């Protein structure tokens, strides 16, 4: 594990282009802000290419590949010049890495596909970028709360991030990390699935929420704002009192509270170090 100070002293300054994702940009800006906070704390020079919009995953996964093609082209134009592209979403990273080239090829654009493939190799989801590129697991975060982590489907089975997010969380001071039962089961979001197959989606969400509530965690975290929008939407409807927070928001939290708009409230209950099922 590389210590933060060591990293700052020896590593050459890396420039990374942030792809905020359309969802975080529009609906959950705190997620993207927290991503910037953590990256800058680790000495990364973050750029935000203004032309960015959406990766096109919703269109691709709904069958509208022709509409997605324009978005893929736009994404490639916007990010082609950067050596590192980082984004706070495993699902969008999965689409960029596994779908952009495939769609371009299917629609007879081999040149675009080749450019998309090259970008795909430089694109990393937030936890991958921290552990694989920056080689950091301790980001000097402080978060004195009881947290359970939902490893999202695309982070597990498309990107194969394994336990990278958990390694990052375990290094957070003050955190009480509770293992989520049946963690690898889908929450039922699935993009337009949540609307097209709303009943099945809700049945899956009900089981996910039961598992989250069973941990008695204050916060359910994940690497995707989209899955958290789903789980959080259900928890909010139940007035369960359990909040959702993106992995980046937890890692952005520090003792001094110097974060971009993210408040770290002190825990209302004293945690008992011996009582939790620590992951």
């Amino acid at each position: 594990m590389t210590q933060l100070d060591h990293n700052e002293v020896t590593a050459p300054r890396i420039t990374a282009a942030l792809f905020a994702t359309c969802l975080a940009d529009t609906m959950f800006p705190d997620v993207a802000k927290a991503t910037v906070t953590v990256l800058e704390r680790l000495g990364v020079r973050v750029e935000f290419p203004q032309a960015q919009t959406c990766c096109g995953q919703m269109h691709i996964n709904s069958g509208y590949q022709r509409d997605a093609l324009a978005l893929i082209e736009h994404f490639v134009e916007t990010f082609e010049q950067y050596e590192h592209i980082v984004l706070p979403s495993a699902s969008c990273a999965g689409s960029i890495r596994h779908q952009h080239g495939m769609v371009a090829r299917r629609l007879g654009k081999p040149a675009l596909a080749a450019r998309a493939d090259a970008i795909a190799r430089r694109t990393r989801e937030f936890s991958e970028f921290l552990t694989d590129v920056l080689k950091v697991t301790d980001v000097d975060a402080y978060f004195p709360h009881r947290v359970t982590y939902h490893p999202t489907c695309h982070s597990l089975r498309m990107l194969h991030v394994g336990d990278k997010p958990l390694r990052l969380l375990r290094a957070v001071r003050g955190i009480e990390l509770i293992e989520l039962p049946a963690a690898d089961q889908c929450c039922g979001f699935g993009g337009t699935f949540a609307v097209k197959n709303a009943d099945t989606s809700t049945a899956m969400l009900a089981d996910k929420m039961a598992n989250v509530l069973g941990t008695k965690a204050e916060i359910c975290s994940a690497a995707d704002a989209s899955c958290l929008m789903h789980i959080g939407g259900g928890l909010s409807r139940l007035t369960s009192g359990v909040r959702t927070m993106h992995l980046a928001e937890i890692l952005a939290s520090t003792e001094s509270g110097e974060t971009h708009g993210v408040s770290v409230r002190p825990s209302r209950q004293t945690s008992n170090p011996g009582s939790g099922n620590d992951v």
Partner: protein
Amino acid sequence: MSDRTNLPVYAPLGVGRLQGDRTFPAAAKIALADGQLRSNLRSATATIRAKRANVVGEVADWEELRRAGEAIKASTMASLDTLLIELERNVVANGGAVHWARDAAEANRIVTGLVQATGAKQVVKVKSMVTQEIGLNEALAAAGIEAFETDLAELIIQLGHDEPSHILVPAIHRNRAQIREIFLQEMPGVDRSISDEPAVLAGEARRYLRKKFLETKVAISGANFAVADTGTLTVVESEGNGRMCLTLPDTLITVMGIEKLVPTWTDLEVFFQLLPRSSTGERMNPYTSTWTGVTPGDGPQSFHLVLLDNGRTATLADEVGRQALHCIRCSACLNVCPVYERTGGHAYGSTYPGPIGAILSPQLTGLTGDGVNDSLPYASTLCGACFDVCPVRIDIPSILVDLRARHVEAAKAASRIPSGERLAMAGVGWAMAGEKRWQLAQRGAGVLRHSTRRTTIRRLPWPLSRWTASRDLAKPPVQTFRQWWATEHEDPS
């Protein structure tokens, strides 16, 4: 003998029991309301999942085995035309007869004719997906021939006038109390005092079936694999009923999809390892039967192999979707699928449920743009659990995504009037393809902030009401990330 010279030059579409009468969301709604079904499925799939994980985990070269299975199937499909003729030649050389069926209707006519030629009025059956697919039992009944299912779960389904809901465990939606009720009501000569102990129920079924095995002259089976270079057919099973059917009667008729082929005898070693561990979670299945044509004085003296297309050639023509033909019907994808676990198999409307059904059924029947099976590729969150367990590495999520694109293309071709969804997707796509347009759209979304004084949005108009029926939606923020970045990071000078 062979009538393959009469096969059409076009690829026939699949007919038979490959499509339900309502879309997946509509059928799922009914299934989701059945609490007994949900609880039966939850415990049954969890049990099989755990068993599979255990026995797969102990095989050090499991990933290599999967890759071998994938490679054998891919090369088989690449030369299916010549391998099928090789199979036919070897079956015939060993005293069997081979029949080619374009679709379900033709296969039913062939089998019915073969049974009628023996004069038999009843047949025993080995559990088989393909005879479910073509609706053979119903076709035989229409000709006055009674078919008796001899697999325990299939017997439960048949006695209960029910439909299978799982590839491997067709009665997964029934628990033992329900099975006892079915036996008491429907099994001729049942012992009225039976309990719902599994051993007691199985014993009662054995007593009933033993008589059928001994008095029936014709058996009908499917096949797990056919070996081209020897002409050998194989059936793997757990209960021994298959062995009875394959050895006792005078006549054996095997119906097989044309994709169930492997090139050589040695290829079987890969699948005999992959299949039992993936399907029942066993290291080895209890019974493996293989036969090659007929053997004088031993077993059935008359053997017929019916090779069925029913949409398979059409599926083979698709570069992405053809992988679905690699399936060895283990049902591991069903057991890990979070959608299947909640809805069960009937919601898929086809003989083939679960993730494999969602990619196989619409390809066999064809996507029309507005058909019932067009809803199947959407019956998934693309969570990817199915691909991880597939013993032949069928990339089900990618095929689902491809079929969705084919559905949209078919819908566009079928109707000149665009659907609301198509218009919305085109509109959002247009807005997102340009940064200025997208920023305007973001400001438009921000207006939703003022739709409610609550901290979250609890009601939205159709079709987003399907979201807010069970989930709140966060209010859009005062400031988008882009706006915040401009104030914090962009140097105004």
